[in-house]
């Protein structure tokens, strides 16, 4: 089998991706021009940075800090707001890859307001993170990580768009499978697992204070990978046990073809790539695709999609 014989395409709620790599939300996806560039780097799809109904300045710097085992961020959802986003992404359909919108809010209504506005641009799907661990009023700091809140917010968002909605879950919850089921109950077409972990903190001993200006932030990258793999595994199992079929986007610490394959075997249909953009640069998308093809050749796998959930007994 030659390396070009492996079919590494995959599908998410009817959206076909030429390969399973997806730019994760919050990394680079600030402008149409950057999405265009990511498309040129061979990504299978891209997600925009999360947008709130109105503009937010976010936290002060340092907002993103790397340490050897991972990255911590407390960006605090800085963004120009949904009106500006609508303008920024007005031409999103001309970008040659599937693009996921991403909106957050403090209440189901705020989610819906932002979603309704944003989806006029023509995004292929919409992701809603209910899982940010470091922005007061949002995500897990606002109690969005319960099955009830998950279902309620998913329902509010699904009411304003016909496009598939992916609920992005937190790894910092006792039973992530239940959240996934709640998301589907609310009308979501799939789930993204996971957002950043923790939160965590780094301390500078000379300044005798936390390095991130906000004090703590979400942990991503290698440190997160084992937890993310377990979360995807748990979600896949929970959906299967409940007899529900829905795709999972596995996110957390994926920085090589081998990691991507691990995620897929845990149950993911596609993989989000965030911190690895720091580790390997924007060429990471085509590199991972290439590595997947080599793995396919080595392990004699013809269709990547056949491997979804393969490690999930």
């Amino acid at each position, binding site marked *: 089998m030659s390396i070009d014989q492996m079919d590494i395409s995959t599908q998410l709620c009817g959206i076909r991706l030429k390969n399973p790599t997806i730019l994760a939300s919050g990394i680079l996806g600030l402008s149409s021009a950057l999405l265009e560039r990511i498309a040129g780097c061979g990504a299978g799809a891209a997600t925009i940075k999360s947008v709130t109904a109105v503009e937010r*300045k976010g936290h002060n710097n340092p907002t993103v800090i790397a340490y*050897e085992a991972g990255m911590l961020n407390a960006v605090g959802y800085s963004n120009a707001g949904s009106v500006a986003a609508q303008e920024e992404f007005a031409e999103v359909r001309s970008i040659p890859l599937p693009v996921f919108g991403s909106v957050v809010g403090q209440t189901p209504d705020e989610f819906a307001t932002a979603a309704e506005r944003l989806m006029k641009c023509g995004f292929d799907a919409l992701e809603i993170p209910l899982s940010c661990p470091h922005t007061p009023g949002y995500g897990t700091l606002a109690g969005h990580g319960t099955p009830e809140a998950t279902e309620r917010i998913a329902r509010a968002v699904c009411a304003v768009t016909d496009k598939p909605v992916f609920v992005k879950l937190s790894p910092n919850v006792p039973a992530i499978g239940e959240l996934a089921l709640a998301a589907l109950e609310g009308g979501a077409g799939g789930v993204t697992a996971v957002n950043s972990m923790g939160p965590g903190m780094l301390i500078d001993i000379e300044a005798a204070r936390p390095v991130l*200006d906000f004090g703590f932030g979400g942990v991503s990258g290698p440190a997160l990978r084992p937890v993310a793999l377990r979360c995807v595994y748990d979600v896949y199992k929970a959906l299967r046990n409940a007899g529900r079929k829905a795709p999972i986007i596995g996110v957390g610490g994926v920085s090589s073809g081998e990691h991507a394959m691990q995620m897929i075997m845990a149950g993911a249909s596609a993989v989000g790539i965030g911190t690895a953009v720091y580790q390997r640069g924007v060429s990471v998308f085509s590199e991972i695709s290439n590595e997947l093809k080599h793995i396919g050749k080595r392990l004699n796998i013809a269709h990547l999609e056949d491997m979804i959930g393969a490690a999930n007994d």
Partner: protein
Amino acid sequence: MIERENNTSAEQFNTLPPSCPVMAPLVEKKQETPRMLSLLFEIPDVNQPSFLPFNNRPGQFVMVWIPGMNEKPFVISYLSRAGFGITVMVRGDFSRRLAELKEGQKVGFRGPFGRGFSQYNEIPRERIAMVGGGCGMAPLSLLAESLPGASLIQGAPSEKDILYLDRFPNQIVFTEDGSCGMEGLPTDWLKGYVASDFDMIYTCGPEPMMKSILQICRKNNISCQVALERYMKCGIGVCGQCECDGYLVCKDGPVFSDSELLNMPSFGNKKRDAAGQSVSISSQASSKTSCKTN
């Protein structure tokens, strides 16, 4: 059948270059102009991979952290075994707090980040010019030190605003009020007959000034490298905040070449604020407009 070639092992990408700030104490303050001062710091422990001042190439930047306040990008403007320094124009809260630092107080540094100026040995020194204005002189200062014989040209509102006069006594100075050097803007002078004296122009200063220099260079077939400023958050190519037409100023830049700038319709026109909102850049090419970001 197992084959071994091209089998990328996952372990290669399991660790990250760290980017935590490293603290360095202020050892000296030097008022350079009424609104600008240089801060000189001791080189901290050199074993910390997240701050390697001696790796700095002119045009790169470091992130400067005032614990409990904020962290912003600055370029290293002094560098020797004895220490390193930055040159700060007081504009807002952050730069004011920097200016108020006392000797012995510590500030955090990480970097250098980004791509600096590219230098070409085949271009004779006398056919290289560096044109700066305001704190745009900071990145050009280290470049000028590494290119003795090249022309360093500075534009300033008035005599008192001129930077590094002792350090580069041979520099060509323009003041808008004529109080020192030639009267007028460096761009006017370049626009005239001298432009063809150069094969390469490096510039850093107010964006409208840099834009006219790029135009002059294109007209005269001169290579040009421009150091941009955009609002930065992560500084390491992750958050997208500094993007300019798909380029990341923190990683692909801050220095861009003439051919890249042609792909950047925002150059000289638009930048993004702290929230990522696109705002327009005032078009006045005067160096009065303090630092180039205005």
